[in-house]
């Protein structure tokens, strides 16, 4: 079976947040909930300080600590290494949020509108997003990125990969040595976030210049 993984090229990412917005649009996540997001980071001191955007998402660890601590069996890992949450089984204890080193899990206690000052009903787009969210996830449970499971089932790429204008994100099979992601990791010395934790993430980052 394939082990799906991501490669994020830090040289190419310039922090336009397209991935974050595309993820929101594809998954109808409520306000304040991001399954894919970018964080600015700085290193060094003036005059040689460097600023770098770090795109983040669920790292789909091969040894997911969130699954280990989940008491209900709501968190599972499929044959492709993707970690899923079953909202019908999750009781919302938030232990997985404590155990996840990557901040990939979030809970939603209720829908928050983007336009709190607006009078009347939600606008049609937000009403649609709310309806879809309640249909798929509901409230009180842990939620996270699943590399756009539904889109992949339709043969599409994850939304953030498709939307990235800088082509900084790659998606593919880590077990196939000839796949684009494997070649990039090998050729450009891709690295994982916080490898010392032993989670073996499926997301690799290519070093910035």
């Amino acid at each position, binding site marked *: 079976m394939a082990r799906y993984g991501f490669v994020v090229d*830090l040289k190419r990412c310039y922090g336009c947040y397209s991935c974050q917005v595309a993820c929101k649009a594809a998954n109808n996540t409520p306000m304040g909930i*991001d399954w894919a*997001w970018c*964080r600015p*980071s*700085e*290193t060094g001191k003036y005059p040689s300080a460097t600023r*770098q955007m*770090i795109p*983040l998402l669920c790292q789909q660890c091969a040894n997911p*600590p969130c*699954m*280990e*601590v*989940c*008491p*209900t*069996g*709501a968190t599972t890992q499929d044959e492709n290494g993707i970690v899923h949450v079953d909202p*019908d*089984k*999750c*009781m*919302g*204890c*938030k*232990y997985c*949020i*404590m*155990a*996840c*080193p*990557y*901040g990939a899990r979030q*809970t939603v*206690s209720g829908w928050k509108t983007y336009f709190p000052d607006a009078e009347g009903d939600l606008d049609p787009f937000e009403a649609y997003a709310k309806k879809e969210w309640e249909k798929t996830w*509901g*409230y*009180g*449970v*842990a939620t996270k990125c699943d590399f756009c499971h539904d889109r992949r089932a339709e043969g599409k790429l994850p939304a953030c990969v498709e939307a990235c204008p800088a082509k900084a994100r790659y998606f593919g099979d880590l077990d196939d040595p000839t796949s684009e992601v494997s070649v990039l990791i090998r050729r450009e010395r891709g*690295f994982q*976030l*916080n490898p010392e*934790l032993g989670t073996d993430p499926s997301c690799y*980052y290519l*070093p*910035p210049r």
Partner: protein
Amino acid sequence: MMFKAQTKWRWGVAAYLALVALGAGAYLVGVLADMRGPEWASLAKLGVVFGFPCCALGGLVKLTQLGKPSVAWRAWMRPGTSWIARGSLILVAFMLVSFIHFVLWVWPSHVLTDAIEARFVLGFIGGLCALALILYSGILLTAARPIAFWSTAVLPVLFFLSALASGTLGIVLLGILTGEEFSWPLTRLMQGGIALLVFQGITLAIYLQSSHRVPEARASVSLVLAGELAGLFWFGVVGVGLVLPIVLGLVGTPVSTAVAAACGILGSFFLRQVVLAGGIHAPLRAGSFEVALPIV
């Protein structure tokens, strides 16, 4: 780098952990006291009185903290890997044994008053469950590895001592409130409680000192000692939870002892709240860059 403490486990979880520690600690101390001789039996009974209601109340508080309490029955589906699942099983087992112990010894039946061997056997089983429950409440946090402030071997020891201290003080408080004669066993128990508080204070100092090696744990310690949590720590944990009970306990009058015991129990709750609220996730490291997690 700006570190931010986790916000998901706060007062409710602290109350749950403190109640479980109080119930299990008092029961364990009660059972151990019972095994020392017949003159300790009346105090041992008070320990048994604490076990079930405290843990039941703690369980209810925990339920209110769940995002979806209707699925709480699934909490023990993964005891092989999850400490919450293990803890839920231990909690249920302890509640069951302590309830039987209470019903057969304290109220309504007194069958176990003369059946000393049966009482000891039941107490031994319940004591093991209580011990496991106390250890679970510390290991639960230790298992969250990205939070260095929690992921240390000293924390379960600290929570263990705190549970024993709050349990001991709980028995003392209930003893005084129910008009228990200010007998030598009660005085002895109070002295034991004070000793446990001293050990707890030393362990707390070791815990904080040993947390300075990792940057995020150092940030946690700063938050606790001089940051947002400093008031709660110095006033609640050190003042109310340690200094006041030790000083008032040494005074030795019934009123001062009762106040000391109440303060010690409250301090156990503050301690857990400070530890929980001080939890900071490790930053994400991408090569030479570091990113703090968004508010978790």
